């Protein structure tokens, strides 16, 4: 296991950042997924969408250049790049639901071997609401779940989610600090392992059934 949580998150962010091709439109969720933006490989221009109404979102503003009218979906001040634009929420979710966003990257409370995701409610405990997450996972062409492999020792990847779902059968890929899984018609497939981990360690920390891909690889970061 990788004990350093910040290191674990960086591994996840770096690995996900390698998925994108030039000019692809990507939506990153709040929290861990946001880190992905810091690790886009040189030579690749990823276009970031923010569901509150931006395409071409840039980094946080330089001190003294903050504009309160330019925020992201987390409410933080951001910038827009020269090729960027703004639109209303109807257009934003038309883009999202209409399969115009190539990748959505988001966190999970639970994710399961069927590709179902729970990320928006712990009944009786925490009810923030789904925000745009339900639309994003149903609408984006590819859904990547970014999650620490375990939380307080408990696996996050399950046979079946127990919490209310964000959506059913929508996740394409799960990236943790230890492994990369793909959800395939034949079930969950382990396709990459962190060089410092092993199939056995992953099996011990995953509560889902999975097959090990024939061409299992080491996670490249």
């Amino acid at each position: 296991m990788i004990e350093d949580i910040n290191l674990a998150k960086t591994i996840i962010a770096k690995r996900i950042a390698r998925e994108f091709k030039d000019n692809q439109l990507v939506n990153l969720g709040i929290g861990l997924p946001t880190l992905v933006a810091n690790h886009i490989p040189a030579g690749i221009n990823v276009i970031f969408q923010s569901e509150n109404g931006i395409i071409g979102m840039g980094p946080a503003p330089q001190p003294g250049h903050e504009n309160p009218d330019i925020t992201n979906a987390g409410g933080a001040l951001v910038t827009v790049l020269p090729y960027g634009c703004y639109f209303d929420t109807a257009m934003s979710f038309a883009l999202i639901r209409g399969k115009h966003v190539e990748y959505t990257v988001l966190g999970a409370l639970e994710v399961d071997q069927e590709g179902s995701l729970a990320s928006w409610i712990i009944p009786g405990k925490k009810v923030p609401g789904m925000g745009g997450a339900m639309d994003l996972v149903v609408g984006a062409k590819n859904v990547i779940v970014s999650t620490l492999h375990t939380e307080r020792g408990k696996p996050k990847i399950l046979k079946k989610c127990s919490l209310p779902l964000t959506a059913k059968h929508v996740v394409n890929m799960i990236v943790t600090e230890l492994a990369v899984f793909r959800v395939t018609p034949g079930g969950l497939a382990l396709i990459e392992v962190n060089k410092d981990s092993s199939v056995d360690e992953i099996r011990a920390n995953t509560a889902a059934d999975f097959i090990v891909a024939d061409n299992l690889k080491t996670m490249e970061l």
Partner: protein
Amino acid sequence: MFHKLIDRKGFSDLLKDDMTIMIGGFLACGTPETLVDIILEKGVKNLTIICNDTAFADKGLGRLIAARQVSHVITSHIGTNVETGKQMVEGSIKVDLVPQGTLVERIRCAGAGLGGVLTPTGVGTIVEEGKQKMTVEGVDYLLELPLRAELALIGGSIVDKAGNVVYNATTRNFNPIMAMAADTVVVEAQKLVEIGEIQPELVMTPSPLVNHIFVSEKR
């Protein structure tokens, strides 16, 4: 010709207990804050608020919840306002959580005279409870119904005296959609300009949709 400017009293007179009000903004960005001030001052109660999120207890429309003027909120996210969750647990506010893309389409339906829309969002989740499910060409959808209000409060960046509105950057969000879906529409103008100063291609809410213009006291 166009006599749309109103003052604090003019806006206050529009407010009543038990009203259904849509308020624009996304985590308070684009929310008409002075209009929220005036609702707080008037103290009308038992409001139903339709909004993207309940913002913060001390900023945006979330202040109305903190002041316990709201009995029902229809929204996609309440996580940034501790008051909403607290009052929900107490049972003093009813919270309907709606996926963001569904929320905006439901408002759009009301504004566009459509009877409903089929969305794949929420299928297989608790969102589908009580809703009609339909299959079109092998895909399952939920039928989502229109959502309308008596009053829509809009945050406009540049507004001309006819009522044409431009929204800067991400202040746009739900504002132009809500401006179509209420009996009365009030826009809080960050900047009021003369007719003819806005490029006609840039208008995001056409003037006939706006009933009243209130010049913002903020910024």
